[in-house]
């Protein structure tokens, strides 16, 4: 019995050592980013200390103004808010239609929309570039936002339809008897009840749009319209050795993501497992 317990304890100790090592591995690069962002241009090449003795906070002000990260940051904010609002409205409307309302060829249309989620189309950015060019939307905020909205629709319709399918119909039926219109029922009853699924959808797309790079690279040429991921590459290309300012810019790009993650962690993990495992 004694040998058994001591073996169990040593397995537990090994488990914790593995977990702690992995946790340090996950956190260290972020820690190093913060540390580097607080050093001066001279210190960064010589001072390898993890916590700088005299943190140089003004790097953040310099990055925000001189590095133009204020413009990139605000652009990212605009792209994220507009895309996510568009995705939520359009996909919840469609999901409600598929789950609750009746019209011919419903399942055909549903499958058609969902199949786009399944088939990987690498290099779709080329025809999208051609399309936006034709619509006169190349190098515009509208063009990029429309691409982002389209990118989120299939997943949104998929998870919201599943949610509506399991939602009890009683309240909606009562509202129908009271003479509410179909849109009224969707807007005032079904949508508020779908809040848990909407939270997952919102956070999932906030992260996706905020972190997106390739489409922003293909669609935009004007610096003034670029989101922050694009801005980081522009800054890195022109100030190749200004590591403190670059690290401050990276930190500015990362802070909203980390805050959103800390607040909405449960929803993020739920959304990502649901998205993957239900396929």
């Amino acid at each position, binding site marked *: 019995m004694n040998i058994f317990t001591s073996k169990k304890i040593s397995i537990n100790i090994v488990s914790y050592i*593995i*977990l702690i090592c*992995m*946790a340090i591995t*996950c*956190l260290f*690069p*972020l820690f*190093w980013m913060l540390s580097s962002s607080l050093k001066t241009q001279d210190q960064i*090449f010589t001072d*390898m200390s993890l916590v700088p003795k005299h943190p140089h906070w003004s790097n953040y002000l310099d990055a925000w103004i001189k590095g133009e990260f204020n413009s990139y940051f605000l652009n990212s904010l605009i792209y994220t808010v507009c895309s996510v609002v568009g995705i939520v409205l*359009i996909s919840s*409307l*469609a999901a409600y*239609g*598929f789950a609750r*309302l*009746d*019209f*011919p*060829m419903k399942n055909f*249309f549903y499958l058609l*929309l969902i199949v786009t989620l399944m*088939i*990987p*189309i*690498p*290099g*779709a*950015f*080329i*025809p999208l*570039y*051609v*399309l936006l*060019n034709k619509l006169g939307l190349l190098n515009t905020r509208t063009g990029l936002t429309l691409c982002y909205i*389209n990118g989120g*629709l299939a997943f949104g319709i998929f998870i919201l339809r599943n949610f509506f399918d399991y939602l009890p119909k009683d309240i909606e039926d009562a509202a129908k008897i009271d003479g509410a219109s*179909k849109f009224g029922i969707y807007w005032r009853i079904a949508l508020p009840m779908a809040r848990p699924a909407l939270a997952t959808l919102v956070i999932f797309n906030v992260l996706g749009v905020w*972190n*997106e*790079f*390739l489409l922003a*690279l*293909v669609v935009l040429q004007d610096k003034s319209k670029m989101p922050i*991921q694009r801005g*980081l*590459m522009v800054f890195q290309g022109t100030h190749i050795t200004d*590591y403190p300012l670059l*690290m401050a810019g*990276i930190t500015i*790009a990362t802070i909203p*993501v980390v805050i959103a*993650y800390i607040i909405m*962690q449960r929803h993020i*993990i739920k959304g*990502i497992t649901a998205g*993957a*495992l239900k*396929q």
Partner: protein
Amino acid sequence: MVSYSLNFLISFSAKLSMDTRKSHLENFSFILPALIFFCVFSVYPILKTFQLSVYTWDGIAPVMKFVGLAHYKHIFLNNPVFWKSMGNAGIITLMALTLQNAVALLLALIVNKNIRGKHIFRAIFFLPPILSGIVVGLIWKWIYDGNYGILNYWLSRLGISGQYANWAWLSEIKTALISVGIVHIWKGLGYAFILFLAGLQSIPEDVYEAARIDGADEWAQFKHITAPLLVPVFAIVSILTILGTMQIFDLIYSMTRGGPAGHTSVPITEIYEYMSNGEFGYATTMAIVFGLVLFIVSIAQIRIAKKMKQV
């Protein structure tokens, strides 16, 4: 597409009463915005892709030159660089499939054992996957820096000198691809971990209880309960790993841009290069060929998973 489906709808509902028809049209209007988006931003690009692949076009000129299957022929016979880029992505994919997923499974097994601080560990492991590829690439580029990077500083403290002192990890042919692969694994590990953990948590505890009563030790439980029940999760994680890694772009673009001398180039960087050089037709054909390769690999993967399930 839209007018076609509307026509169909109207002719179909002609047989129905006026009221139902009106109600069907109203119901249909709920999915109309999504359908318009779908036609403009998904159907048109897919059709355009196949059209572009048989033309030579610089993206600007009003006239495109028809070349038939010449691009396909050239890619299959005369573009070893493109196939090498697939090989590079393949090597990173193999690293992710083995190393990343093995460690992820191990961590999931440990965390699933009702360990203290379970939620904190889970939150930390899932932090790298939510960061952008550009952010991760730029941070690691700084860590890998040959002259001033913290990695070489530590190695020098450990006494590594001579040829490998100040080693430029990302611009040396020997280490560039592996170094990028390690960053990709660092970023992707938490994602595989979360999926494995969700799979493990869906196995009911009483199955293990019954096995313990029958005298099965931990290894026997893993072999006869956990592993077989995890096969579907294995399949999903593998497919997502393959599709995600083969289409890697942001990390490569921010760390090496495919260098040194194409040793870290991957299909998407190649396609992007051709497109920015104004070879729209050829770049699109590369995308189709690459898409077919991904499709075949996915199908093969699903077949293997199905066979495993039967065993």
